[in-house]
């Protein structure tokens, strides 16, 4: 297994995330340098997860603070952030689903791989982190949406790029 995830995977995930935010959240997001490593723990109160499986298997994970997730939800729904109540988990789940789905489509185009993806799960809380089994490769992609910070992580459980 390679030490790091193939840059093509990262590039397509970055492009998928930017496309989803531009068209469905109506905000541009600007990526900064992706980070690799097993000990990455982005501070987040909201975590959306979608698994994918095929020749390559893994997870696409969205992280943000509750405040940023509320702003994203409000923008998707076309309402004020103060109006967001119980809609947040569904909105963040749909956002993660679209990022993972767009990533899957892009990878099918460039590599010809066909993946199945799971329904999204969303965790909302505080003082928690997600620990994965050791046999994974991870790359964490930070984004800025205005002054807000959010992250999208790619976790690959099988060989990426081999």
């Amino acid at each position, binding site marked *: 297994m390679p030490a790091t995830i193939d840059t093509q995977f990262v590039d397509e995930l970055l492009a998928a995330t930017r496309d989803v935010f531009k068209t*469905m959240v109506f905000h541009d997001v600007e990526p900064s340098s992706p980070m690799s490593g097993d000990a990455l723990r982005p501070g987040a109160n909201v975590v959306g997860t979608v698994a994918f499986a095929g020749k390559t298997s893994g997870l696409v994970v969205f992280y943000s603070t509750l405040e940023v997730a509320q702003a994203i939800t409000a923008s998707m729904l076309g309402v004020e952030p103060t109006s967001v109540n119980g809609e947040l988990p569904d909105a963040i*789940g749909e956002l993660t689903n*679209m990022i993972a789905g*767009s990533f899957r489509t892009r990878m099918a185009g460039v590599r010809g791989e066909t993946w199945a993806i799971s329904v999204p799960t969303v965790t909302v809380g505080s003082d928690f982190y997600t620990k994965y089994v050791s046999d994974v490769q991870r790359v964490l992609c930070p984004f800025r949406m205005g002054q807000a910070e959010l992250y999208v992580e790619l976790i690959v459980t099988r060989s990426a790029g081999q």
Partner: protein
Amino acid sequence: MRFLIVDDSSTMRRIIINTLNKLGHQDVQEAGNGKEGLERLTSGPVDMIITDWNMPEMSGIDFIRAVRSSATVKDVPVLMVTTNAAKDDIVEALKAGVNSYVVKPFTPETMREKIEAVLPR
């Protein structure tokens, strides 16, 4: 013109409704899955169905097959909005009776073009 949106995500239903509103369409009904969609179709005529693929209770594909086998609504145009973009998925949807296909994420312009493409002339 009346639309029926069938999607288990309330967020996606709202996004599609907002998009339709921007395009000048105000008469929109909603359903959370295919089974609810079939129930809505018995309560009044619709001019176009916009449905998701992956839903609980009854999937979008099963819903479309049920629509196409119905005596009363079999000719209603159906637009599928989904993240399933593989060729096999599109072929399966077309075989089930979808008129056109929108891959998420989408722009209002894409939605407008797809709606206009499947409307009866």
